[in-house]
């Protein structure tokens, strides 16, 4: 016992608060507003002109878009098919979306991607497109009425403590444009949070490459793979489908709100959906270049929040356990950013807890829908910064790609595939230690 104690004390220096750890976003970190407003703040080191643009971009992010033509012609063009009327409709207060507790439509905050098998691999459905839109302008049929039901999975920790996981099933009823095709692949995804996106964008590709290990050459059980989008590292979206912030923003405008931009000049209406195709548009493109730039800047510059108790004993213990369990092999704690279109985001030591790589997460979490380099079992490691504030910001504690986990604890327990060993290490901990690890996650 004494040897262990000694070993712990001497080895302990690495378990203290590390240099810069209090400020997960480096100099951008929001140290001013927490609680429900924790994800609203601009990066604190923005140049004054950029800060002005941030507030303007915030306006276009928050306010509703309306059907064209409208008096407010800078804000029209919504739909004809859409999932939400505004960015903040799903990314409310820049937080995360969640499935509705009753699983009933409309699924505000959760959307469903679609694909079918094609000659060269998965492709959008010829009629329903690449995403299911469950809202529409008057006179245009919605694509379907989606709903969710859950099945309970009751299990026990090795120490006998019971827990319950809830596995979702998705139902698409009343398809509006003919029967849904056999073999339709679906992928439900909640809206991710908006903090630190420009920082993630500025992590150098070399860094991501050096963390990848597709063949598990170092034999640590982890085989992170790079997603590619347009030839470049894909790093936004649940499977890393978008290479950079502008592509993510343009894709979301088009797919989620039916708003076209120069980068993505078509919405998700297919030629077969004539009711949709026949509706007036709000201009070509509907989002003009200046407005798009403002939303892109805004999306890059939302500040990650400060740590609240990085030096508390329980949190530090949790951090040590997190690393011991191997969680940090995919949830890589820190990086230094390189070049960015926003100078304020450059050369920052950041703590997002992600390697931005694709990992096989096991059968339980698989959506069976490959995208780019990602198989039907792979997901890109999401960042963990901000986890503890989701409850205040978004009013729920739902985690993972479709919000199936009703707590951080459940989220950990769902980890499978490459993460199975780490999940088991967590499950094998003493109850107080599990609590400590979760306290660490709650402080991020």
């Amino acid at each position, binding site marked *: *016992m004494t040897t*262990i*104690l000694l070993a*712990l*004390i*001497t080895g*302990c*220096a690495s*378990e*203290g*608060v590390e*240099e810069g*750890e*209090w*400020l997960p976003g480096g100099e951008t970190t929001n*140290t*001013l*507003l*927490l*609680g*429900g407003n924790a994800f609203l703040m601009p990066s604190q080191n923005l140049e004054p002109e950029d*800060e*002005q643009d941030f*507030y*303007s971009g915030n*306006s*276009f992010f*928050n*306010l*509703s878009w*309306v*059907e064209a*033509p*409208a*008096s*407010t012609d*800078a*804000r029209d063009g919504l739909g004809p098919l859409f999932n*939400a*009327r*505004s960015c903040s*409709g799903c990314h*409310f207060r820049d937080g995360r979306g969640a499935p509705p507790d009753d699983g009933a439509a409309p699924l*505000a*905050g959760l959307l469903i991607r679609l694909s079918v098998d094609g000659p060269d691999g998965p492709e959008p459905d010829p009629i329903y497109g690449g995403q299911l839109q469950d809202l529409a302008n*008057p006179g245009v049929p919605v694509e379907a009425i989606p709903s969710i039901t859950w099945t309970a999975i009751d299990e026990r920790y090795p120490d006998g403590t019971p827990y319950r996981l809830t596995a979702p099933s998705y139902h698409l009823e009343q398809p509006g444009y003919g029967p849904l095709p056999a073999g339709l692949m679906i992928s439900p995804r909640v809206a991710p949070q908006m903090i630190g996106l420009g920082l993630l964008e500025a992590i150098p590709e070399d860094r991501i490459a050096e963390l990848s290990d597709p063949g598990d050459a170092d034999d640590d059980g982890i085989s992170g793979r790079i997603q590619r989008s347009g030839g470049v590292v894909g790093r936004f979206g649940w499977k890393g489908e978008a290479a950079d912030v502008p592509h993510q923003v343009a894709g979301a405008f088009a797919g989620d709100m039916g708003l076209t931009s120069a980068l993505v000049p078509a919405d998700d209406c297919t030629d077969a959906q004539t009711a949709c195709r026949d509706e007036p548009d709000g201009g070509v493109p509907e989002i003009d270049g200046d*407005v798009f730039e*403002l939303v892109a800047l805004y999306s890059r510059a939302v500040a990650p929040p*400060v740590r*609240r108790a990085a*030096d508390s*004993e329980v949190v*530090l*213990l949790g951090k*040590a356990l997190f690393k011991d369990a191997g969680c940090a092999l995919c949830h890589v704690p820190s990086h230094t950013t390189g070049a960015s279109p926003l100078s304020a985001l450059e050369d920052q030591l950041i703590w997002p807890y992600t390697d931005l790589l694709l990992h096989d997460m096991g059968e339980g979490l698989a959506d069976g829908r490959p995208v780019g380099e990602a198989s039907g079992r792979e997901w890109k490691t999401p960042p963990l910064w901000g986890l503890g504030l989701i409850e205040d910001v978004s*009013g729920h504690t739902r985690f993972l790609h479709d919000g199936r986990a009703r707590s951080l604890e459940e989220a950990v327990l769902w980890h499978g595939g490459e993460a199975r060993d780490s999940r088991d290490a967590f499950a094998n*901990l*003493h109850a*107080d*230690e599990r609590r400590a690890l979760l306290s660490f996650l709650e402080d991020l």
Partner: protein
Amino acid sequence: MRYLPLLALALTLGCNSKDRSGLEDTALSWPDNTEAAVLNYTAIVEATYADSLAAAETLNAALEALASAPSQAALDDARTSWLDSREPYLQTEVFRFYDGPIDNPDDGPEGLINAWPMDEHYVDYTIDDPATGIVNSDEPIDAGSLEELNESGGEANIATGYHAIEFLLWGQDLSDTGPGDRPFTDYVTDSSGTATNQDRRGLYLTTAGGLLAGHLSQVHEQWTPGADYRTRFEADPQTGFEKALTGMIILSGFETGGERLQAALDSKSQEDEHSCFSDNTHRDMIQDIQGVQNVWVGSYGSINGVGLRDVVSEVDAALAGAVDDRIAESLSLANALQPPFDQEIAAGSAGNARVEALIVSLRAQEELLFEVFEVFGLAVTIPE
């Protein structure tokens, strides 16, 4: 791992490096007048909502009169009542942004009261589509269905509230020189009426008016003396102070400066203004800032007591003075905007410079208020 207690001990011994670089270490002793300021604040909140409710009830009477006996005089009267009802309501916008009764995520009705922009087609005819909107459909028009049509967790709402009523009173603003010009005959139900579904339009108008008063009442109720929310708010003056300040900060920079002014300029769209049908947006700016000043100095109507500035003054008189001057400057610049606001933001207009000046002042205002935040050690942690 059975050695948890030893592990904890080891960590305590070895690992407690407080690397708080960049964060203030404040051990502020709160001024004695903090509680008085918070009690005065809650009194101001209650009074401002009470006035808003009263004005909404006057508005309702005018809307009923218009719907039941449409005439030019009745329409003018309803429009005047609408404009009057905005004056107190806009001064309540500073009470937003801390999940209080007006905007808590569970049942705060702010989106049902003041959402913008309005989806015109959704409600009534427009110049390009004479048959669109709930008014011209078979949808039931009653309080329950209108509310339901707006429901979509976290989403901005589009069919109720001040701006829906504004649209029904003025119609789209299709002119460069004045507001919307809806004829009173849109409400006339005999054959001399204009447009269609005049009876439904009248019903929509009065239903929306009733909803508005109901929502304002719901919020006002929670700020009356003895109400649960007010009691809890007053029981914790330091948090109350912080919330009052948070509302001032976010309204100054994000909302008025950013969403309403900067975005309007950037959109280069004439109608990108909150009260676009009535061309009343300049009052929105002025009264939003007035609300901030009310809270800062501690007065509204007949209430004149300890303001946030008096608390700040105890700790940093120079900072309090700087904020005094800055808010006064913002108010003065807001008053210098030349109505109609849509001409001020029109591309290339001389008004652009006036709007810019106001934006700059509001941003500076927000910066100063953040300094207050820091001086009081409110940065970093909020005890929720």
